[in-house]
């Protein structure tokens, strides 16, 4: 059984096709990054999983169909929606208590206290949600998705508007949940977060999947992407044969563009032959961002 099974999912708004035959599986224990530019279809897909979008195709959460077995599917799912939403009549604690009740969970004060502490809202626990800042409201939404300890957690841009320090702590908490066996699907604009956290990556564009594989596979494919290397020499000398590769020179520091990382060894050989003394070398491998942009342009 997959934690999430998405099979031939189509979604249209009038004549606009937001999702075009999307199929992929998320296995239990995966930490999956769902990447796409604005309007790519990420939120349409998440709304379909959440049961707040109509769609054609099949979606199953922990083996439960989100249409025919909707109640069981929802018990297994915790979603942080992208749009900021809050109940202006409730405090932080009441919001989480009510949210627990919606999932049939009672007597979970200890867990609510722990979640509130981990999302840094402890001092706001009795404050009305109206008084929270945007980042705090976002963190409350993260807490809401976790009150019933769902096996599958979907986070749609959970750290938008959250400051750097708290974002880091939030990811530590999510990683901890992942280590405890929760399956996580994440969309974010911070690609470094995906690079650091996720073991699988799915890229979608204009409603189509353009890449899906493990992070390791994606990175290994990226050896064909341009790499830059910064070489600092001791006296500013350099090999004449490499002039064409230099894209920037700042004093003794030379930045070279390589078509791929395999070119590095011959370059070092040429520098040795030219008797250039190297002080420092820094290789800039293609980032996930470079890989992502490369896929978008295919």
């Amino acid at each position, binding site marked *: 059984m997959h934690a999430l099974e998405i099979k031939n999912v189509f979604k249209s*708004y009038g004549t606009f096709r937001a999702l075009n035959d999307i199929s992929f599986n998320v296995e239990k224990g995966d930490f999956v990054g769902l990447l796409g530019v604005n309007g790519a279809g990420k939120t349409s897909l998440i*709304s379909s999983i*959440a*049961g*707040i*979008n*109509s769609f054609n195709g099949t979606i199953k959460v922990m083996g439960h169909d989100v249409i025919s077995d*909707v*109640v*069981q599917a*929802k*018990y297994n*799912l915790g*979603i942080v*929606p992208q*749009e*900021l*939403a*809050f*109940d*202006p*009549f*409730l405090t932080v604690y009441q919001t989480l208590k*009510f*949210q627990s*009740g*919606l*999932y*049939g969970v*009672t007597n979970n004060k200890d867990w609510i206290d722990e979640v509130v502490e981990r999302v840094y809202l402890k001092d706001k626990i009795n404050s009305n949600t109206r008084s929270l800042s945007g980042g705090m409201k976002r963190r409350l939404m993260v807490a*809401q998705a976790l009150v019933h300890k769902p096996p599958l957690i979907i986070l749609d841009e959970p750290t938008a508007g959250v400051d750097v320090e708290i974002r880091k702590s939030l990811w530590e908490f999510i990683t901890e949940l992942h280590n405890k066996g929760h399956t996580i699907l994440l969309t974010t604009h911070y690609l470094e977060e995906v690079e650091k956290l996720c073991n699988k990556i799915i890229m979608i564009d204009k409603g189509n999947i353009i890449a899906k594989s493990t992070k390791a596979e994606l990175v290994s494919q990226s050896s064909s992407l341009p790499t830059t290397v910064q070489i600092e020499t001791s006296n500013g000398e350099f090999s004449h044969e490499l002039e064409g590769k230099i894209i920037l020179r700042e004093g003794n520091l030379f930045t070279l563009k390589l078509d791929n990382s395999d070119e590095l060894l011959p370059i070092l050989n040429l520098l040795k032959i030219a008797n250039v003394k190297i002080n420092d070398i820094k290789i800039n491998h293609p980032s996930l961002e470079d890989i992502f942009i490369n896929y978008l342009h295919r």
Partner: protein
Amino acid sequence: MQPFIQLTKKEIYRFMSIWIQTIVGPVTTAILYQLIFGSQLSKLPTGIAGVSYATYLIPGLIMMQVLLNSFGNGSSSLIQSKYTGNIIFVLMAPISPFLIYCAYLVSSIVRGIIVGFAVFVGIYWFGGCVPKSITSLLFFLIFGSSIAAGLGLIAGIISEKFDQLSGFQSFIIVPLIYLAGIFFNPHNFSGFWQHVAYLNPFLYIIDGFRYGFIAHSSANIEFGAIFVFCLAIVINYIGYMLIKKGIKIKH
């Protein structure tokens, strides 16, 4: 059932947390109506032997506030939830559309009943109006408020903006309620206007509820009971279908 109970409790908490607006306000309005109309029109014949105008007015004013508040609860709760986006938490929760609808409906009826009781306590001493048929009173109270609550939920679902909801309330609901025989006995009208008055569905709710107090109705009470019951079923079925299909709520 736990999700249903939680949603109902939260909805009741919502209107109780603003009790000055939702409970005290309607009682004050009813007292003012009773003071002004009850005293100024005290000599007006009701057409019913032994029933003064002040006594005639009391059940009408109670039901007026029951209907307005049942309508207002469902409509304002839904449109606020749509506006602040928090309806998404209910839509994502493991609760069926039927139970979502029931939770909003029950809480709206509860608000109607609480307001109705508070208004009764506030104005009964103006005319010494003591209930004569508890069955009739409760029947029209519950089914009458469920009609208004259902209409409120429908208005809350289909309205995209507050002014659309306000228009629905100001131009349809309020005129129908005010012209439903709260302040006058439609039986005293003659010919054409009497027929027009009896076309108003809210008239049968107020007439039946008043029957519970004074044991006298302007229209046939059995017909009124059947009509109100059927209308409550139809209105709330429509409301439920709108929630189930996610009209103006889901995409």
